[in-house]
């Protein structure tokens, strides 16, 4: 039952650019962990390492789930998804020429999720009613913010146990930012979902986070609970504009 993601001392990058320098992080069952830090500091790269989309050159990424421990650096992205890990990527990455509903169904591609399609679809449509109204519309013809909602819903369709969310609130109207964050919390409360979330909106992130890590230039410079984060100097200067 216990799920644990454990990242130890990873280094990763793109060609000559090294994006992560010895990053370690742990997430336990049911936790919501915020990944903070301005753009270009390695948050997305870290998530891609968990998803097998970027291979670390050093260090380990392991996921303990359903009584087994898996070395994620040796699995393909689809195998990692099959374990119950889903990601909402930065920049939406939808299938623009498919309908809203088709995008959602593709999210449910992994075998375990197929049996729960109707329940998960109902949750997505309840969480984001606009997706139900537009289920037959092409994804690419919706507004940017609506596409963001679809990207989140598509990840939920895979019935993940561990959800990685890269900037969920980008492009959403203020009313929807808090709504989306609340929906992620509901998933956590109802289904015990474990969440790793990169979010620029600090106030929204800490509403649902248990803990957080601050990453600067590819290194973890601080980790702590929400209270410690609120008092952290870096957070104050980066996010709260009081630095």
């Amino acid at each position, binding site marked *: 039952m216990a799920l644990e993601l454990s990242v130890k001392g990873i280094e990763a990058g793109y060609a000559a650019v090294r994006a992560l320098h010895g990053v370690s992080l742990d997430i336990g069952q049911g936790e919501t962990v915020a990944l903070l830090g301005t753009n270009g500091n390695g948050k997305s790269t870290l998530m891609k390492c968990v998803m097998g989309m970027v291979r670390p050159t050093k260090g380990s990424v392991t996921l303990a789930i359903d009584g087994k421990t898996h070395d994620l650096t040796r699995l393909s992205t689809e195998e990692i998804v099959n374990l119950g890990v889903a990601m909402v990527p930065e920049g939406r990455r939808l299938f623009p020429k498919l309908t809203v509903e088709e995008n959602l169904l593709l999210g449910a591609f992994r075998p375990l999720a197929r049996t729960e399609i109707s329940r998960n679809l109902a949750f997505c449509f309840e969480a984001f009613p606009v997706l139900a109204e537009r289920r037959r519309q092409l994804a690419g013809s919706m507004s940017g913010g609506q596409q963001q909602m679809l990207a989140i819903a598509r990840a939920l369709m895979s019935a993940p146990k561990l959800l990685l969310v890269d900037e969920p609130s980008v492009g959403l109207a203020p*009313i929807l930012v808090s709504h989306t964050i609340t929906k992620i919390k509901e998933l956590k409360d109802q289904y015990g979902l474990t969440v790793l979330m990169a979010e620029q909106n600090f106030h929204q992130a800490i509403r649902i986070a248990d803990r957080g890590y601050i990453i600067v230039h590819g290194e973890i410079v601080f980790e702590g609970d929400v209270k410690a984060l609120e008092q952290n100097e870096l957070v104050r200067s980066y996010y709260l504009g009081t630095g």
Partner: protein
Amino acid sequence: MAALLEVKNVSKHFGGFTALSAVSLEIAPGERFGLIGPNGSGKTTLINCVSGALRNESGSIVFDGEEVSRLAAYQRTRRGIARSFQVPRPFHSMTVLENLLVPSAYVAHLKDHEARDQAMEILKRMGLAQKAGAQANQLSQVELRKLELARAMAARPRLLISDEAMAGLSGGEVDEVLAILFKLNDQGITIIMIEHIMQAVMRFSQRVVCLDAGKIICEGTPASIVQNPDVQKAYLGA
């Protein structure tokens, strides 16, 4: 003073869906104008109609006294309307500098060395000068957003439309982009800002319009807009 941009009764449908329904607004030369509204309310559709990416079905769009709604996008850009895109769309295989040379050469019609000087000048202003030789697909999100604005600037616009240039940026980065937009406005460029980051809209705009379901529901100063019950209900979620 005559309006720089006059949008009169502009409507746009996608199939049976009404994206814009008789929208009218006027923007004065040198104004800093904020456009807000829920997701799918028609903000991007409206500026697509203004910039020429889409054609409005009815109504008129007058820029500096000239009806432009039947002109192609590039013709409108040559008349002084430039915009940035929500999802950055650089020429990925070109360098940052080359990305700016395209509008400099084909829109502003600058000669080789002039185009280069102007491009470098803009990159300096945007804090991108060190990246001039980097390929666009090597840039980080913030850099891409700055490149988006820089490229719009290289067309030497009189009206700059910034479509969510700050989405996904953190507090300090938002301040950086805001400072750039203020500087451009000081140089006489009229700016329309579409943004969901309310602190940015509030600080930047002299006047704000809120769209909902393709209609203008409220217009006023930033302070009055956030107090408006309709805006709170549709957009802010008070």
